[in-house]
Structure formats: structure tokens, C-alpha cells
């Protein structure tokens, strides 16, 4: 059933402008990051790692969280328009499958975004003429970033489901990013989804997850966020009236 819902959800993304954003935002992050690196070569001497600190900062602390919020707002906007809530809620599928199918589709989009970003980072490094191989940590950064993104998207999906406006949840997401930065600085990053992204992608400190226990903790907290928020959102869908 979930598979059918995901297929239906995926079909709704045809001819959609979301694809343009999925490609554009990583490109912009890489361009700004590379330019910043290029102009500050005097102090940034650690090739790949220095480049990551630059591109990662723009991407992980700004463009990626916004992209997550936009993707989540977009998949719900489709239903907020034209009384489509009536359509999905009278389909013979479980309410949980409706919510989770959106989460899966956003997850696939974000994995794609991470892939594009990773690829562009390597291309950027080659273009800047680095002599060494790309860092071995890259895959881990991207993957952990994706896991944190899944936690954030659960939160954003719940917000966009309840708030019929497109801009408000995206704005809230942006605020949460800054709040996450604050939590990270206060060393409480493990307890906030948006700080999990900073930690997971190693954008502020490339060695923030150095031990296995930290790694496990990161995974567990992400999973906890996903479970709690999605359970609450699905419960809310079951209990409340459909408003169109």
C-alpha cells in the first residue's frame, strides 16, 4: 500500500518546478563556497577539508535546510489546493501511508540533492586544482546529512500539513536553522533536528562525531525525532476533520 502511495506521490511531481530547485540550490552553494575558498586561499590551506568548511557552511546552514522546508511545503501544497485533501482522504489507503509516502518522496529528493552536492564538491575541488584525492569522510558526511535531513523533513512535513500557507513553514524552518546553530554552539546540538544536520555533515567541526557512541547517539536521536513527530502527525490526521 505504501508503495502505491509513493508511486502516486511521485506521479504528482511530474512537470513540477521542484526539480529546478533540487538542482539549483546545491549549484549555488558550491559556487559561493568555491568562490569564498578561492578568495581566501591565504588562510585556507587544507585543500579538500578547507573547501568543505566553505561549501558546507553555505549549504548545511542555509540552502539545504531551506530546500528541505520547500520540498515539504510543496508536497503538501499540492493537497491544500483544489480540495485535494478530499481526494487523498477518500482513497482506500491508510492515513499513515499518506503521510509516510510524502516523507519517502521527500527523502528520495533529498538523497538526490545530497548526491548532486557531493558530486559538485568533487568537481569543484578538481577545478580548483587539488592534488590529493577527495576525503574519505565525504560519503559519511553526505549520508549523515541525509539522515538528519530526514528528521528535519518529518518536522517540516508536520508543519506544512497543518499550516496551509507555503511561506510560513519555510520561514519557521529558517528560524529553526538559526536556533539550531545556537543549540549547536551551546553544545546541545544533539537535541535539535536542525543542529543534527550541522553535526552530521561536519560543517562547523569536521570531527564532531568521532566515536562510535556519538555516531550511535546521532542515529538514535534522528530516529527518535522521525518516530515521534510522524506518529503525532498521523494521529492528528486521523482525529481532525478535513478542511478544504
Amino acid at each position, binding site marked *: 500500500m505504501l508503495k*502505491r*502511495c509513493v*508511486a*502516486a506521490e511521485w*506521479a*504528482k511531481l*511530474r*512537470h*513540477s518546478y521542484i526539480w529546478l530547485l533540487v538542482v539549483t540550490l546545491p549549484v549555488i552553494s558550491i559556487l559561493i563556497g568555491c568562490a569564498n575558498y578561492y578568495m581566501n586561499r591565504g588562510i585556507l590551506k587544507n585543500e579538500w577539508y578547507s573547501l568543505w568548511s566553505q561549501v558546507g557552511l553555505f549549504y548545511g546552514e542555509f540552502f539545504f535546510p531551506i530546500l528541505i522546508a520547500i520540498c515539504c511545503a510543496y508536497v503538501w501544497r*499540492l493537497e491544500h*489546493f*483544489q*480540495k*485535494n*485533501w*478530499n*481526494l*487523498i*482522504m*477518500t*482513497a*482506500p*489507503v*491508510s492515513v499513515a501511508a499518506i503521510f509516510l509516502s510524502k516523507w519517502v518522496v521527500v527523502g528520495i529528493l533529498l538523497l538526490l540533492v545530497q548526491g548532486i552536492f557531493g558530486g559538485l564538491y568533487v568537481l569543484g575541488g578538481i577545478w580548483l586544482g587539488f592534488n590529493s584525492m577527495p576525503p574519505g569522510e565525504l560519503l559519511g558526511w553526505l549520508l549523515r546529512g541525509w539522515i538528519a535531513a530526514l528528521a528535519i523533513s518529518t518536522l517540516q512535513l508536520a508543519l506544512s500539513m497543518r499550516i496551509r500557507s507555503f511561506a510560513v513553514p519555510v520561514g519557521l524552518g529558517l528560524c529553526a536553522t538559526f536556533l539550531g546553530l545556537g543549540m549547536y554552539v551551546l553544545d546541545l546540538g544533539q537535541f535539535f533536528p536542525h543542529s543534527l544536520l550541522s553535526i552530521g555533515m561536519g560543517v562547523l567541526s569536521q570531527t564532531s562525531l568521532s566515536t562510535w557512541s556519538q555516531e550511535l547517539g546521532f542515529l538514535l536521536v534522528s530516529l527518535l525525532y522521525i518516530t515521534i513527530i510522524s506518529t503525532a502527525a498521523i494521529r492528528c490526521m486521523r*482525529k*481532525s*476533520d*478535513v478542511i*478544504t
Partner: protein
Amino acid sequence: MSQVVASTSLSKRYGTVYCVKDVNLSVCEGEIYGFLGPNGAGKSTTLKMILGLVQPTDGQVTVFGKELAAHRRLILSQIGSLIESPSYYGHLSGLENMRVVQKLRNVPDRNVSEALKIVRLTQQKDKKVAQYSLGMKQRLGIAMALLAFPKLLILDEPTNGLDPAGIGEIRELIKSLPQRYGMTVLLSSHLLAEIEQIATTVGIIHEGRLKFQGRMDVLKNNNRPTISIRTRNNILAEKVLMSEGFSSCHRGDSLVFENLTDELVAQANRSLITANIDVLRIEEHKKSLESIFLDMTGKERSL
């Protein structure tokens, strides 16, 4: 005939106001049930409760003999619906919209082409729905509701936004559904004429309460003409006619009789003249379905 939809004291309260109150709806298999009421009478809310879109404050709904709350998915798989204005994804073509519903309902490809053919959208299926006219969107909505060829079809104001030719066409389509596909149809409208032409059974709702429910022909029987006779002495006239077996009631300054044949009218007139009572008027009054409807829903509100 088995009951397809049954609700018992179904109520919905918003704040302190009951939008739907103690509605006992009963829709039987193979019927075309017309749910009639003025705007804001509670039609859509009732239909939404039958589909589980709105949670009732009180009462319960059973569909196909099963309780909705407990068998939601099973029940929904056998219902096609179009509630309020049609749902659609504007950036997708008509066909792509149908594909989305097809995936959700897990039905074969031929259903898609068949449903599009029924509503005559096959030619425009590749056009973006945002560019459809209102009538075409409405047709697409009906096609989506028909897609799984469900046992029960729930249509809320199905002819909204259609031109007269389109209304006629959709009316004929709906009328043919019970025989062609064995469907039961529950449709709502604020237009008496529309329900009169389509429905076999009618439910009239006003201010959230069900005022009448029954077969259309029963409602039409309430329609029989009355004869009113005005004389110079109505009291004496009544006595005279009563002794001859006529029964009447007073309304204004006339005596009103029901079920009088032409022969009986002539006989009554003869008796009155013989008794030396001057007859001033003999009039026939026909109560239209519309006035019956207005009696139930109140004249002060628009239909």
C-alpha cells in the same frame, strides 16, 4: 433491498451550533437518492461524515452494513466520490490526474480509458487540467469518482458549473448508472428540478434536520389537487355536504376538499344549490412539488 448507507442520529456541532442534527439517512441498493436542501443546510457535512472526512459529534454511519470507523479502508475502496468542487492537480494533464487516482485505487488501465470515455474527455486527456473549463474539471471529477466502478457513488452537486447541455448529459449518465454498473447513487443538490428528474428516493434536509425521506412518488402524491368551494354560508354548506358524506376543512373563507372527482364536484354544487346556498367560487388548487419543498424549508430562504 439492502441498505447501502445508514446513519443513526448523525450530528455535527461546530461551536455551539449544530450543522447537522439527528439525521437518520437510509439509502438502499440500486437507488438514486437525491439529497435536497438549501445552501448551508448541512448536505456536504453529512456526505463528508459518510466518507469519514468529518468526524461526527454524535451518532454513527454504517456503509454496506459495516461501521465506517472500524472498516474505513474496505468501505472507501467501494465508494467513488466527488465532494464540493472537483479535486485535481492543475499542473498535470487529465490523464496524469487519472493515473494518480489509479495508483491510489489499484485499478487496471482499461478503467482509466473507460472512465474518460464515459465523461467524454478522451480528446482532452493530454491537456493540463489548469487549462480545463469548469465543466471539464467537473467531468474529470466524475471520471475520477467512477474510476474504480464502485458500488456506491457519492456526488455533491454534480452538475455545478455545467452548461445546460452538459447538465442534461450528466443527468442521463447518472440515471443509467444503477442499471449499467449496478451502482447506488447518493447525490446532493439545492435544485429541486434536478432531483425531481433524477432521483428515485429523496431526502430533504433543512437547517441540519432531515424533514422528509421517502420515495419520490410518495412525495409527488402529496401533490394531488384540492378543490376549494366558497359560499355565502360556509357553516351551513359544510353541514349539508357532511350529511352527504363529503369531508372538508376550513381554509380562509373557503371549504377545502381533497380527492374530489369531477362528478363529485358537480354533485356537491347541485346539493348546495338545492339547499338554497349561493355558491360564489369553485376553484382547483394544485400544490406543486416546489411549494411542498418550500413548506418544509421555509420561504424566507433562497433555494
